């Protein structure tokens, strides 16, 4: 048994060593598809998981209640919430100021400055991720805000004309992520995007002396944190200290539950999810297309290998094990690689603001299981056909040169006779393998879909997010664009690799035919052009077919706005795809056409 296992491993390792290119391509295709797909599948619920981690680590409140101003009326109405239904704990009343923060070296942003306790109370204990907690004369900047501003511990910032050193960076679950730290404007209405800064409470006195807008807030702990709905429905009816209702008070109270914050935090990922999921499936299709072509290209070699093993007494089971183990091992390795990439990339995608704790991110158990099943399925589907064919063939036949009768489209072959030589050769190559041409067209269509969506999104005017004196990029918009760009680049890469594989496979399979064409007078240039043409012809319909699909996806998932690019511009998409195809097929086509005719014919008939 040990000997047979060693043998299987030896044959698998030997084949991978001997053919590193196809192995690398297989790993690349599956890894890219797995990474994108697993990231896409990880997005639902990802923000919730991170928020819950942050909430647990920072003793996050169940409800945050805010009231405009910092006068007695605001304090009084907020304190009376202790009597609201289900409330079992209430923090002291905090004040926050709507100020402008200027970082040293320039750059302004809107900031919410919260007067913090030197020793945080039982509800909301922000977690310091670097530096230390607030001290007199030093401020702590919320992590997402600090990241967007490029501020670090030790840097200096100016708030309302006073300079403070940044002594720490921290996270909290008492706020929605940057740039939604305000959770409402100073008057109780909607607020502008801003970041959170904690300042030692006594240090906020100079701010209190200014006319900066301000609000007061309290953190509430509920008896049943899961049941905040009852509180939200009835807190306005809570009696206030003046004998009336909270809802009748001069200071209007707004309450935000922790469930609301999860929903608000997830807005970042709203547009990323369809990109990652649809992109992941398109990439999976490209991976299958590439691997199928690869397997077809290697079929003759694999069949001969099976023959060699049969001759020395290998059973069908052992031969099947050798063939499947190789594809399975590579697919599992690629799956692990893709998942590792997804794990590394997850923080940037799931937590783009950086405002939440990232103790555990990336694909979880079910996602890992799902992508592994897909990777194994792709490997099995790819390997099974050639394996079964090879196993069914007599040992003697497998040792002989391949005599597979190709499919043949008679009409296409006849039409080709009327055309110039490169077109004639290209069309006849397609006529021999129409299935592969269709696969290539579908792969190109998938890529064209990605490019169409990318162009439509990038053509939209960029929505700036005015965070004060400077316009900072709209993070959500940035997130969507970056995701789309990454997925499209991955698709382009796989499509190009697939095109090279198809050109290489076609060149390899048609060696004898092309050698005979050369004996009949075709030049090496015409042969190379014919091989390139065989790839270029399916590229054009594929690229054109992808455009309407891409427009549909953008219309369906994108903003409710007219397209910023006309269909005329989009019709130019096939041009770069055709050019890229011509470039990447030129090398295999040229190498193939340079091979000696005599050598080719001898090899094919040996």
């Amino acid at each position, binding site marked *: 048994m040990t000997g*047979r296992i060693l043998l299987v491993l030896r044959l698998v390792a030997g084949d991978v060593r001997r053919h590193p290119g196809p192995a690398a391509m297989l790993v690349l295709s599956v890894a890219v598809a797995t990474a994108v797909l697993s990231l896409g599948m990880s997005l639902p619920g990802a923000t919730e998981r991170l928020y819950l981690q942050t909430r647990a680590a920072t003793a996050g409140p169940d409800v945050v209640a805010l009231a405009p101003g910092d006068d007695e009326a605001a304090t009084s109405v907020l304190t009376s919430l202790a009597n609201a239904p289900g409330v079992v704990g209430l923090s002291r009343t905090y004040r926050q100021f709507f100020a402008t923060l200027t970082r040293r070296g320039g750059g302004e942003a809107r900031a919410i400055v919260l007067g913090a306790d030197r020793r945080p109370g039982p509800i909301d204990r922000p977690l310091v991720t670097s530096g230390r907690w607030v001290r007199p004369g030093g401020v702590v900047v919320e992590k997402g805000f600090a990241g967007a501003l490029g501020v670090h511990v030790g840097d200096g910032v100016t708030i309302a004309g006073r300079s403070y050193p940044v002594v720490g960076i921290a996270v909290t679950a008492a706020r929605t992520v940057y740039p939604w730290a305000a959770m409402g404007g100073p008057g109780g209405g909607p607020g502008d995007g801003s970041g959170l800064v904690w300042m030692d409470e006594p240090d906020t006195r100079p701010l209190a002396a200014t006319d900066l807008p301000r609000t007061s807030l309290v953190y509430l702990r509920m008896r049943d944190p899961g049941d905040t709905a009852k509180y939200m429905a009835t807190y306005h009816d809570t009696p206030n200290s003046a004998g009336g209702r909270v809802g009748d008070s001069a200071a209007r109270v707004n309450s935000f539950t922790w469930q609301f914050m999860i929903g608000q935090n997830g807005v970042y990922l709203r547009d990323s999810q369809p990109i990652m999921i649809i992109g992941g499936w398109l990439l999976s299709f490209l991976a299958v297309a590439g691997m199928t072509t690869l397997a077809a290209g290697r079929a003759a070699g694999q069949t001969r290998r099976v023959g060699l093993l049969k001759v020395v007494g290998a059973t069908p089971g052992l031969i099947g094990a050798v063939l499947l183990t190789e594809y399975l091992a590579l697919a599992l390795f690629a799956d692990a690689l893709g998942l590792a990439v997804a794990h590394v990339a997850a923080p940037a995608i799931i937590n783009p603001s950086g405002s939440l704790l990232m103790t555990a991110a990336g694909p979880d158990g079910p996602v890992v299981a799902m992508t592994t099943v897909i990777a194994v399925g792709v490997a099995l589907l790819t390997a099974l056909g050639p394996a079964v064919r090879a196993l069914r063939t007599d040992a*003697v036949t497998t040792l002989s040169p391949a005599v597979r009768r190709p499919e043949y489209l008679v009409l296409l072959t006849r039409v080709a006779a009327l055309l110039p030589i490169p077109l004639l050769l290209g069309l006849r190559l397609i006529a021999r393998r129409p299935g592969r041409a269709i696969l290539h067209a579908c792969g190109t269509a998938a890529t064209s879909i990605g490019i169409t969506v990318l162009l439509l999104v990038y053509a939209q005017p960029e929505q700036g997010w005015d965070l004060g004196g400077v316009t900072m990029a709209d993070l959500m918009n940035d997130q969507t664009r970056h995701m789309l760009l990454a997925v499209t680049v991955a698709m382009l890469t796989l499509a190009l690799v697939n095109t090279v594989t198809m050109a290489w496979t076609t060149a390899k399979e048609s060696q004898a035919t092309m050698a005979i064409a050369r004996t009949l007078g075709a030049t090496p240039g015409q042969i190379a052009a014919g091989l390139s043409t065989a790839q270029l012809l399916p590229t054009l319909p594929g690229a054109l077919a992808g455009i309407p699909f891409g427009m549909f996806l953008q219309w369906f998932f994108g903003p409710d706005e007219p397209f910023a690019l006309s269909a005329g511009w989009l019709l130019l998409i096939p041009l770069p795809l055709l050019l890229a195809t011509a470039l990447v097929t030129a090398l295999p086509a040229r190498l193939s056409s340079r091979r000696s005719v005599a050598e080719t014919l001898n090899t094919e008939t040996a």
Partner: protein
Amino acid sequence: MNVLQVRGLAKRHGREQTLVRAVDGVDLDVPAGQTLAVMGPSGCGKSTLLHLLGGLERPSDGQVWLDGQRLDNAGERALARLRRRAVGFVFQSFHLVEELSAAENVELPILLAGGSPRTARRRAQLLLEQVGLAHRARQLPWKLSGGERQRVAVARALANEPLVVLADEPTGNLDTAATNEVLRLFGQLRAQGQTLVMVTHDGRVAATADRLISMRDGMFVEDTWLAS
């Protein structure tokens, strides 16, 4: 005792006008220790006969017994077991596994037969010494000359001490020096009492046999005993 027994063996390809009788109802007995050479013009069916004897092809008619076991109706798994235990093949184009070294190629049938890696390694070392290639054990096939590759193939054929070695044009792709080296090896096998059936065009190879069968159009036309 006969290692190989063949009765009414036939292999046909095609139908009616395209019917080709590659092997046309031959009978054959090969006793243990005999070296048998089969000669004939191209296309006379001698390679097909060898493939049928080794269970690489299934006959259209007739029976083949190897060591008393019928091959012609055996399943693929049983054939595989029989090939690894009782038959060693040597081909004109060597048919070594390209991604395995010379030693690993020789170890291959031993591991397939369930031998331990250590046993396989020792046996391969011994066989490669016998064919004079111990120093080339770690080389991949493409780094070996044609003669060296064929000697590795011979070593591989002998790996499981087969009852019969079937050689198909073993010197067909070799130059004179390499041919002489392979003939020397076959001479050693004959001296050791190894049963050997070879198909050849080469008179020098045939001359080393105990018995010579001439084939034409799938039939035996002459059966000559060259040595007592």
